[in-house]
Every structure is written in structure tokens, then in C-alpha cells.
């Protein structure tokens, strides 16, 4: 039975379209005088944030409250890494409180998956960003924004630029956009691309300028300043020059192409202020769409006797069937 939203890779095309369509209907309700819907009355949604993210947490909080769910914000600063309360104990606590859904943000890749499959909790789990793995609702709101502007995904080209290696947003977008039929190009310096990226369902380019003219949407990823110390690229100046989106590069985009950024932006680094504030930029709209998309996700996961979307709890089991390596003598 589907229960969780952990990765966009788990979403079928039908699932993804259902989420976007539902979000579209929900967005239409946003203009009403009474924005609240009674749908999740009596349900408890816990925002479990092991990492600071006011934007994402607030977006989920508004989404859950507009569906009349009770919202508990549980910010667990300091994970078990720093010997605070462990993920397991936190999960047991929330289980005891009767959480119907746990929206989890964690610095460790796989934390949401672990929460969903380790048997500590029977709640629905929504991944709100796990380490450098995935951030499915961000990708969904990006897709929602793109569909509104581009009309669809078939034959549309989306270029994702920057620190793909450390970006959960990039991973979730590549899976989701490929599922929806768009063509994705990752443009980044080789040091910021993961090993094995050739097998991802997308194209890869080291040359942003080559990718720009064919792009219907361009998504700039944040480059964290600490990456500079990691030696991933020589200087901020060189990065901006080769992979930053400034007015000159923007001018080479097709006429109706949009500029996106999952935020928070580092103006002057991966995106110039002029571009961020231009009429091509849909960055503010992305934020607004986040609430509708998260309402759709919570609605589809929580409202019925079983979830309409998402991944299977039982997936992690049967692991041992894979233990005999392929090609090995039996």
C-alpha cells in the first residue's frame, strides 16, 4: 500500500500528474475568502525538522493548516550525530503522540526512508529534504510552476545548472521531469557532478552557454560558499563567469523561457540580481505554488483510507533476495 512520499523516483507518471492536477484545483481555491478546507480535520501533521529551513517548514505548516490538520512543529536541532535525541527516539515520541504524518527534513541522506521503513513509526512520511538525496515536494512545485508556464512537459527542455553533486533538488527534479516527459540537461563543472551521472535520465554538459539557447526553463541551483573551500572550483569569480546566470546569458534564452531557483539564492554568485528580479524569473511564484503542491501531497497521502500516491512501505524488505551478485557462480 502506498503510504509515503520519499523520492520522486517512486512516483509513476499518473501519480505525478495526479499531484499536479490536484494542486491546480487547490490553487484555484486559494483566492476564496475562506482558504481553509475541512479535509484533514482531526489529523495531526508533525513538521520534524532536524535542519533549519524556515521556508520549507512554513510552507508545509500553511499547507497542513489550510487542510485543517493540527500541526506540531518539532524542531530537533542536533541529530543523533551530535548526541542529541536520536531519530529513532524522536520517531517513537511522535508515534506516541499519534502523528498521522511526519514531514521530515534531515541532514542525512535516507533519513526519511529510514523513518518510513525502520518500523519505528506507523505515520505517513513526507520527505522534506534528506541530505544530498532528494527533496520531492520542491521538484513537484517546480514541475507545477513549469507546467503553468510551458503548458506541458513533452518536448520541453529544462536545464539545471550548478552544484548537482550536493543538490537534493536536482536529483528530485531529474527523476520527476524525466517521468513527466521533459528533457533535462544538467550543466555544471565536472567537479560538481556525481559519479555515475551518465546513467541518469538526462543529458550532461560542462558548457552552460551551449545549453542556454535550447532551454524552455533554466533552474539555477544554489552554490554554498563552503564548497569553495572544498576545492570544487577555483574562485567565486570563475564560477560566476562560467556557470552564473547574468543578463547577458539570459538574453540568449528563447523568448518564453523561464528562470527558476529553489532558493535561497546567492545573488551575484549563481544568479545576478538583475536576472532574479526580471520578468523571466518565476522564483516568487515557485514559493506560492509550494503551498498548493504540499496541500495536494498531504491530501492525497492522508485523506483516504489509503494513499493515492507515493511509495510502498514494504519496499525495503526482501533485500536479501539481491545478495547473490549477478554474474557470480552460484
Amino acid at each position: 500500500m502506498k503510504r509515503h512520499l520519499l523520492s520522486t523516483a517512486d512516483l509513476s507518471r499518473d501519480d505525478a500528474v495526479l499531484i499536479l492536477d490536484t494542486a491546480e484545483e487547490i490553487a484555484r481555491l486559494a483566492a476564496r475568502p475562506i482558504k481553509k478546507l475541512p479535509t484533514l480535520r482531526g489529523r495531526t501533521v508533525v513538521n520534524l525538522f532536524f535542519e533549519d529551513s524556515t521556508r520549507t517548514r512554513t510552507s508545509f505548516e500553511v499547507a497542513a493548516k489550510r487542510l485543517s490538520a493540527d500541526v506540531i512543529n518539532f524542531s530537533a536541532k542536533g541529530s543523533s550525530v551530535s548526541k542529541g535525541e536520536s531519530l529513532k527516539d524522536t520517531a517513537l515520541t511522535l508515534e506516541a503522540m499519534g502523528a498521522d504524518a511526519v514531514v521530515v527534513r534531515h541532514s542525512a541522506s535516507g533519513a526519511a526512508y529510514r523513518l518510513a521503513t525502520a518500523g519505528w513509526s506507523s505515520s505517513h512520511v513526507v520527505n522534506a529534504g534528506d541530505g544530498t538525496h532528494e527533496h520531492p515536494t520542491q521538484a513537484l512545485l517546480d514541475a507545477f510552476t513549469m507546467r503553468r508556464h510551458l503548458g506541458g512537459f513533452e518536448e520541453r527542455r529544462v536545464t539545471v545548472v550548478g552544484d548537482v553533486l550536493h543538490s537534493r533538488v536536482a536529483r528530485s527534479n531529474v527523476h520527476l521531469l524525466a517521468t513527466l516527459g521533459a528533457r533535462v540537461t544538467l550543466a555544471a563543472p565536472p567537479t560538481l557532478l556525481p559519479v555515475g551521472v551518465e546513467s541518469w535520465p538526462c543529458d550532461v554538459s560542462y558548457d552552460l552557454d551551449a545549453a542556454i539557447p535550447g532551454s524552455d526553463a533554466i533552474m539555477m541551483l544554489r552554490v554554498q560558499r563552503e564548497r569553495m573551500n572544498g576545492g570544487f572550483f577555483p574562485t567565486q569569480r570563475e564560477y560566476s563567469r562560467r556557470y552564473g546566470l547574468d543578463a547577458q546569458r539570459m538574453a540568449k534564452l528563447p523568448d518564453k523561457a523561464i528562470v527558476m531557483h529553489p532558493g535561497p539564492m546567492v545573488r551575484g554568485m549563481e544568479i545576478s540580481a538583475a536576472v532574479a528580479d526580471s520578468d523571466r524569473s518565476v522564483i516568487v511564484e515557485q514559493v506560492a505554488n509550494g503551498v498548493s503542491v504540499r496541500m495536494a501531497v498531504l491530501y492525497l497521502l492522508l485523506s483516504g483510507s489509503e494513499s493515492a500516491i507515493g511509495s510502498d512501505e514494504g519496499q525495503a524488505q526482501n533485500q536479501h533476495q539481491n545478495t547473490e551478485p549477478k554474474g557470480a557462480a552460484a
Partner: protein
Amino acid sequence: MPAIPQGARPVLDEADISRALTRIAHEILERAKGAEDVMLLGIPTRGTFLADRLAARIADVEGTTVPVGSLDVTMYRDDLRLKPARALERTEIPDEGVDGRLIVLVDDVLYSGRTIRAALDALNDLGRPRAVQLAVLVDRGHRELPIRADYVGKNLPTSQRETVLVRLREHDGVQHDAVYLGIESETAI
């Protein structure tokens, strides 16, 4: 869903449905003393098409266009947790808004009354109508709430084990409109 379900017997044919809608259109105008502040809101999916048809008949009779919209009640249902999560239908409120108007809710079948209860709640969140009325093609009885229809195409006594199936040209890919009375195992509407 098969266009004409097996084992179902027709209880209304296209002509019956057409006459019923024409009658309801007249009744609405009569009760409202004209079409001035009437707004029709169909409950998806078939109620939406019936509302469109009623609006067309009112236009024929009165020569005026009444605003028509749709009101999805899914998010207001009281049985959400009993069934798998379902897709939302379209809510389309005409630009005039519902405040101060006579809203006629339009649905295909009136049964337990729970859908209409949800619709009243949904409407309440949209504004404050002057009055709310209900038009249905078929009233099959077995109410579970104190709700009644103001305009009924056909009162159809049924057993709770039976299913009423409405088939409309716009929605169901059929040649002719019809209402069937199905056997227990048929998919509910």
C-alpha cells in the same frame, strides 16, 4: 465503466430526461420569479453537465443567461477516510460570486444527502447566498440527513441494494441519455 451496464434496466430514456429538465427549468424560473439572481452550480461530474443543460433551457425560455459553475465537494465529504484518496474535481465559481444570490445546486442522483451536506459546507466557505435550492434528476430515497430536493426530475423508489446509474452523452460516451436501475454488484455512482 461499461456504457450500458449488464443486468441494468432503463428507467428513464432520453426523452424522459429532456422533459424532466425542461420542467425543472420552468419550476426554477417560477419559484425565483424570473432568472435575475439565479446561479446554477453543478456538482461534478454529471451535475455539472445537467447544470449546463438547465442553463440552456432557462436561456431558451427566458432569453437570459444565468451564470453556471461547478462545485466540487470532495474536500468536504464525510466519507473520505472510508475510501482511497481520490482526485479532485473542478470548482468553477462564476465571476459574479455567490454572495446574495439564489444558488441552485444541481446533481444527478439524490440518495443519502451527504453529498449535498458537503456542498452546503463548501458553499458556506465561498460566501453568503440569499438562498440555496437543490435540483436533482433522480431522487431515489433513503436519506440519512434532513435534506430534500426543491426540484426533482423523477422520484424513483429503490432498494438500498440497487444502484442508480445515470448516463449522459457529454460524459459517458453514450449515444442517448438514460437512467438505469442496476443490480447490487454494479459500481456505485
